[in-house]
């Protein structure tokens, strides 16, 4: 209990003091996860909408692959990305290993199945009569998809939140492909691991509290986006 209070105090004083190392870690976390989430959303929402609204042979296989991806261990994805971007690997020439870029790639792979999977569920639970009705009103395929996404925006939002939660708190993959390099690829989760390992439990807990606070603030903002609807009745 003492440790928790100590951690809380340390977290607050770390934030107030604007320790550049701490600020750097927080910014790197946000930058990596923000960028990864942006691309995961860019891939995941169209993919989820497509799978949720169309039927084709082999769809069940793709859906099963997607569901597997939703539960795939991040460390395994980290290893995969590591091997891919290692200088001996196929994309080694990019020199992305141990940079935030490799971390972003890993996080995209971790989060886009979540975004796509939840979007698919949200979209396919929209009344199928509405699809037919919109088509009858003269909507093109694109317009129908947009309208359906708007209808299921709450579910789509949950998909983004799920994707965000999975990667902001992820440690195994970013540790492996980022290398936890100070002032470069160190993020909150890897900093927690490092400080725990060093025995700096207070500092580790304060990073944990900062992570928790960031996650809470982001989720709070996302779930209170204006125009989300659903609270007026």
């Amino acid at each position, binding site marked *: 209990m003492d440790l928790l209070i100590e951690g809380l105090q340390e977290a607050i004083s770390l934030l107030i003091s604007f320790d550049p190392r701490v600020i750097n870690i927080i*910014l790197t976390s*946000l*930058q*990596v996860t*923000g*960028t990864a*989430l*942006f691309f995961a959303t860019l891939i995941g929402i169209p993919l989820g909408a497509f799978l949720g609204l169309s039927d084709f042979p082999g769809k069940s296989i793709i859906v099963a692959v997607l569901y597997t991806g939703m539960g795939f261990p991040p460390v395994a994805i980290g290893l995969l990305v590591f091997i891919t971007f*290692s*200088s*001996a*690997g196929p994309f080694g020439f990019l*020199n992305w*290993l*141990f*940079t*935030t*870029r490799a971390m*972003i790639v890993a996080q995209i792979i971790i989060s886009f199945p979540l975004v796509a999977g939840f979007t698919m569920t949200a979209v396919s639970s929209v009344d199928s009569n509405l699809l037919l009705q919109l088509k009858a009103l003269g909507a093109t395929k694109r317009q129908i998809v947009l309208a359906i996404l708007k209808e299921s925006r709450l579910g789509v939002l949950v998909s983004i939140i799920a994707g965000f939660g999975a990667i902001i708190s992820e440690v195994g993959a970013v540790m492996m492909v980022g*290398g*936890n*390099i*100070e002032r*470069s690829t160190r993020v909150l989760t890897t900093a927690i691991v*490092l400080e*725990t*390992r*060093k*025995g700096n*439990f207070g500092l580790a807990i304060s990073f944990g509290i900062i992570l928790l606070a960031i996650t809470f603030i982001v989720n709070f903002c996302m779930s209170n*986006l*204006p*125009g989300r609807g659903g609270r007026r009745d």
Partner: protein
Amino acid sequence: MKRSFLIALVLILTFVFIGCTREDTTERIRLATTTSTDDSGLLEELLPIFEKESDYNVEVIAVGTGQALEIGRRGDVDLLLVHALELEHEFVAQGYGTERFPVMYNDFVIVGPDDDPADIKEESNLGDSLKAVYQAGLAGDATFASRGDDSGTHAKEINLWSEYEIDREGDWYKSLGQGMGDTLITANEMQSYTLADRGTYLSMKDYLPNLAILVEGDQELFNPYGIIPINPDQHDVNYERAEKLVEFFVRSDIQEQIGEFGKDKFGQPLFFPDAD
């Protein structure tokens, strides 16, 4: 709705932009080392001196010994600073590294519960101490926490058991698969014996109230660190910069500083200079 989206988009694009501009690879040296080295804080003290002198930026990637060697083998770093003597010689012999330069050594200690249920403190040598752990373990009076992560420390521990022909199978032997710090924390909670490097133990001592150093000083427990530049014939690495860092580590003033490191905090040095 639209406005908040716009704001979010601008924020994200800013992050992407930062992401694209930050990666400056021109002045970088990548050093893979073990977590215990990094956690000791020694590099944090030494590397800024080097960075100031040379204008190079040293990126430290702290991983397990096995992983560090593998990263080196793949050419993903410019040099290694590790402590696994035999594996290091093998690494150089196989052509992955150019040469191994001795830098320093520290030592391992056997820590365990304060009350020492296996009475290992009383034994006259390292082998008998280990056998005492084994016997108390079989009797159910003691456990041993092994890192079980293929780290240098783990390799050292396995070597010791086999050297003294002690069978490690049994409930008393817990293979954790964790780093040094986590292993010490676990040992502290489980009242286990474990093999730890002195540096990590001393730096965490405050959090390990149940543990004490029980065996130390045996020649067998010395733990030499070597620095190895990756062979530029094998991979596209910055050999020249790696050489500069090697020269730095073996320089006499730096060697002296290594010998001083930790004295003010722990009352004793954590490392002993080992360069010629």
